[in-house]
């Protein structure tokens, strides 16, 4: 069944389902030049990512290292203004050590806006030509890393889309894939049932602690991870939203708790702890859905399953997004943006297992050369902001 899946083999043994040139600006001051370089190319081949800040941040540095060495990335152009704090030398070394072509342009030294755009486009064009020659190898389900997020949730998300993703996750974990779910701030209230699924008692404690941290963090900020549209859609409280979001995790044993950027060591189900450690700094943990997707990709996700009720339309740079629409009314309004109509479950024309199967088929399709709806529509959103994390304790990844 999986023989159609093809991947690009990288030097670390991972395989990509895409082979894109990443153009990465290292401060907002280089963003415009990056945008101009990218707009000259096919949006499937060249993706723009970047970090806007001028202050140093080890989380952002690590995220950019993980993103630019993601298996879906074949070559990287770094764009520096010249005076920012981002350590472009270290980033370039990490990318080079991964065997990928990497080139850095520094606007202050490379002739300003116009000349840097021209030089950048020439370099990207040469890389596209080279990447077009790349051979693919066969790819199996146990080599995939799949993430899931939900956004624009409503009262249908927890009834259809999220539990259907849970069914797909159960099958993927059984097949040996790595599956990651996240947003500890949207699991508030689920800590005890989640802890009961942990691989070890020590991990159960870590899971509880991660949710307690999220509850403290959001309480201090004064807002839960809950938007007015959630309430319009029938969700009343964060714990109600959490119960629905939690259903995405399915029924597998939880094998570990990871921080953003950690690539899980082996097949299984993992929770990503997205809430920063220590004092509340830098504001809200993930300011919008794409911040979550970017963290999933940094942890190696080949693609992200995105469940929406109200109707999110976003995609992502680097790794495709599969849009699963939980609400049948929303599906009718936004069918062109949606890959899967999980709302059929409420209308009685499909079961959770049917939609779980459709999700699995969509994953295999995307790894076989199909494009998702958000990819076809040109969605390549990207956002990365400041955070700080402590290293995870040994109990977080048992055995």
């Amino acid at each position, binding site marked *: 069944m999986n023989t159609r899946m093809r991947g690009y083999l990288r030097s670390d043994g991972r395989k990509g389902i895409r082979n894109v040139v990443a153009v990465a600006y290292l401060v907002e001051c280089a963003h415009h030049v990056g945008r101009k370089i990218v707009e000259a190319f096919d949006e499937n081949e060249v993706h723009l990512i970047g970090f806007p800040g001028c202050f140093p941040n080890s989380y952002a540095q690590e995220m950019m290292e993980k993103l630019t060495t993601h298996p879906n990335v074949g070559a990287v152009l770094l764009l520096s203004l010249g005076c920012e704090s981002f350590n472009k030398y270290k980033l370039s070394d990490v990318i080079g050590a991964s065997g990928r072509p990497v080139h850095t342009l520094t606007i202050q030294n490379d002739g300003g806006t116009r000349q840097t755009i021209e030089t950048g486009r020439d370099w990207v064009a040469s890389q596209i030509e080279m990447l077009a020659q790349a051979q693919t190898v066969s790819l199996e389900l146990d080599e995939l890393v799949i993430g899931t997020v939900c956004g624009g949730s409503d*009262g249908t998300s927890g009834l259809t889309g999220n539990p259907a993703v849970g069914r797909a996750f159960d099958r993927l974990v059984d097949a040996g894939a790595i599956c990651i779910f996240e947003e500890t701030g949207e699991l508030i209230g*689920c800590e005890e049932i989640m802890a009961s699924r942990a691989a070890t008692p020590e991990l159960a404690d870590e899971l509880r602690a991660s949710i307690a941290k999220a509850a403290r963090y959001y309480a201090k900020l004064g807002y839960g991870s809950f938007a007015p549209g959630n309430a319009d859609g*029938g969700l*009343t409280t964060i714990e109600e939203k959490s119960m629905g979001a939690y259903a995405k995790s399915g029924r597998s044993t939880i094998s570990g708790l990871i921080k953003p950027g950690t690539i899980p060591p082996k097949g299984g189900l993992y929770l990503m702890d997205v809430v920063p450690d220590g004092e509340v700094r830098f504001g809200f943990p993930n300011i919008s859905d794409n911040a979550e997707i970017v963290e999933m990709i940094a942890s190696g996700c080949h693609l992200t399953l995105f469940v929406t009720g109200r109707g999110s339309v976003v995609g992502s740079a680097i790794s495709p997004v599969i849009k699963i629409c939980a609400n049948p009314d929303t599906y009718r309004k936004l069918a062109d943006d949606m890959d899967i109509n999980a709302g059929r479950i409420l209308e009685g024309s499909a079961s959770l297992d049917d939609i779980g199967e459709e999700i699995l088929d969509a994953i295999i399709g995307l790894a076989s050369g199909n494009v998702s709806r958000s990819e076809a529509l040109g969605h390549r959103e990207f956002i990365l902001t400041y955070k700080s994390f402590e290293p995870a304790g040994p109990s977080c990844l048992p055995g």
Partner: protein
Amino acid sequence: MTDSRLLLLAPDDNVLVARQSIDQGTILEIEGHTIALAVALGIGHKVARKPISSGEKVLKYGAPIGSATALIAVGEHVHIHNMQSDYTTTHVIERPDRAHS
């Protein structure tokens, strides 16, 4: 007997979920009670399956999703006007053209 447009998610729940939008004034059967829906119910919204007293936990998916802030009668819309989170306050934007949705 309960109207098939309302979904019971777990045996102990004290709320039911609308599986489609239901118009204001619709007559609904809820486990032996006959009620007229006081407000239009959007898809995914909740109504009380049992009387819920102020301070009582609201149960959905078999789990507490917050506490009632007023006495809620069978068939009444359960939402931000009569229940609250036990964790963080729910943030909504006031819209003059709508009541509770």
